[in-house]
């Protein structure tokens, strides 16, 4: 009996020893997901209540502080540009030739009718500084073993007070994420798929977003092309760049 107990205790200790800390996992995720800069061409397939629409866009970004997006299609959206600089967001449409700042309650509105809000776009991906993280268990998703990390916001001004992330134990890439309000109500769900290796990084090229408070079948975000650590001209991240 003593032997059995000793084996069980040793197994628990060993297993605990194998589980890295939540901070270590988040750091490894950042190594995969965050680059100095990136240029990406993507398609956003929005499955609405009435119709499904595909919106193509090209975006340039530096870390998670600067982002410039230009919509390529359909015709109604073509030429629409968005600029994010730190916590500010501007939008430009050629039909109005206006640069409009998105602020206040507009930030909570959906981006192009998708399941993503402007606020989602504004959020910092630096989870370590914004949330207290803890590994709360493990689960298998599509045959891949994942750690489940629970993140609780350190401050009240976050769009989502709590997050739950399922992280691939092998590749250190999130496979699923659930976003909660302070009340504990589930607001959004995200599935990350088609993970491929690009320049030594493991990166999901398909993401499915679902705003659970919204009707519809969710939004697919497919990365058609992504390049890391490129030379991006400075003017891209200026308001003047919106009119170019």
């Amino acid at each position, binding site marked *: 009996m003593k032997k059995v107990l000793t084996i069980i205790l040793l197994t628990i200790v060993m297993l605990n020893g194998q589980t890295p800390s939540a901070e270590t996992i988040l750091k490894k995720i950042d190594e995969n997901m965050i680059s100095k800069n990136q240029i990406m061409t993507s398609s956003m397939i929005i499955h609405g209540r*009435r119709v499904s629409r595909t919106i193509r866009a090209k975006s340039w970004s530096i870390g998670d502080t600067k982002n410039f997006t230009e919509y390529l299609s359909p015709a109604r959206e073509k030429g629409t540009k968005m600029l994010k600089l730190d916590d500010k967001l501007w*939008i430009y449409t050629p*039909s*109005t030739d206006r*640069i409009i700042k998105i602020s206040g309650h507009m930030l909570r509105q959906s981006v192009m009718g998708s399941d993503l809000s402007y606020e989602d776009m504004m959020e910092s991906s630096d989870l370590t500084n914004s949330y207290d993280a803890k590994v709360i268990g493990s689960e298998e998703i599509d045959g891949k073993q994942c750690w489940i990390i629970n993140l609780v916001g350190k401050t009240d001004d976050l769009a989502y007070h709590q997050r739950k992330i399922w992280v691939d134990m092998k590749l250190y890439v999130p496979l699923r994420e659930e976003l909660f309000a302070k009340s504990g109500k589930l607001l959004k769900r995200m599935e990350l798929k088609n993970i491929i290796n690009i320049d030594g990084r493991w990166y999901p090229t398909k993401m499915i977003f679902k705003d659970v408070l919204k009707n519809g079948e969710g939004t697919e975000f497919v990365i058609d092309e992504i390049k890391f650590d490129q030379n991006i001209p400075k003017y891209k991240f200026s308001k003047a760049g919106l009119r170019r």
Partner: protein
Amino acid sequence: MIKFLLKGLIRDRHRSLFPILSISIGVTLTVLLQSWITGYLGDIIDYNARFSTGHVKVITKAKYDNSQQMANDLAIVGTNKLTENLDEEFPEITWIKRIRFAGLLDIPDENGETKTQGPVIGWGVNMLSKKNSDIERMNIRKSLQDGKLPTKRGEILISDELAGKLKVGVGDNATFLGSTMYGSMAMQNFVISGTVHFGSMALDKGAIIVDFNDAQTALNMENATSEILGYLPSGDYDNEIAHNYADKFNKKYSNSEDEFSPIMITLSEQNGLDAMLEYVSSFIGIIIFVFVLAMSIVLWNMGLIGGLRRYGEVGLRLAIGENKGTVYRRMIYESVLIGIFGSLLGTMIGLGFAYLLQTKGIDLSSMMQNSSMMMPTVVKAKITSTTFFIGFIPGLFSTIVGTMLAGIGIYKRETAQLFRELDV
């Protein structure tokens, strides 16, 4: 007999003056309250009908299930054909297409960048076409504070309060930012042609009014609309008639399996107005009941006091052989005359106050700063045919009931006792 009773009442002021005064005060209050409630609640219903609900409204079933949502993703499509059908099948009703939307109004600086912006609630209404224009129905012309009505596409009216908040005026440019029917971004430039003040906080806080075709273009709603409003030929809402139309339409067009099939709803089924309609009819009844009850108690007491004062007189009349029933009936006849005079006087005074309230109104805007309900800020009474006779119901009823209660004592007095009293 009436002449005889009248002489008695005029000569003995204790029997007439105070009862008439108290009745006329109560009747004045009843008349005033009836006209005020009819006017105010009627205005709320009328406001809602003109701006929001119509007498009947056609929307999609999905929109009906999510009536609080302003987004147009649940709008009706194929409206040109549907409106044609409505015109054919219900020609007596005036059908109006409207688009309601929400978003931001952004004012540019000299570089075309955001100077100021604010949330708005918009109406896409027919202003440029002469057929079925909403200008009169929504009282837009009279609400104009500055500038002029839009005369061409691309012109917009904004509420006076919003103009002040955004520091813009007539001739300035403004960009609307919102969502199209399919959820994409909607951005459209407009020129402010005028400012309006509707006298309703819900509208004046942040309303913009654009032409229906401009709204269709901006929100990508070709051959689509948020709602089709129907107005009954009489111009006044009739719940039964409206329900008949709705039943007929829904039997033919509504499909419970298809969330985007059209459904016709009545005014009473929107914005909690069913409760309000119920309230209007029941409240007047409650006022009359309370008044009758309170006044009956007052008049009963006055009757008792009068009875005591006329104790000797009534006793003598009974002693010399007048029938108890006759004395009792004559007291009631007297009370009918008092009731008529009191009600007449009260109605005239009440009508005078009601007329003042109908023409001038009371401005309650300072108390409605945060009101989101569609209601006028100036409370006005409305004199209807009911106002002329409503006061007579409590006026007469309470006097008669009061006298009947007070007069019961007559039947309790024994003849033998009366003679003993008279001896004294």
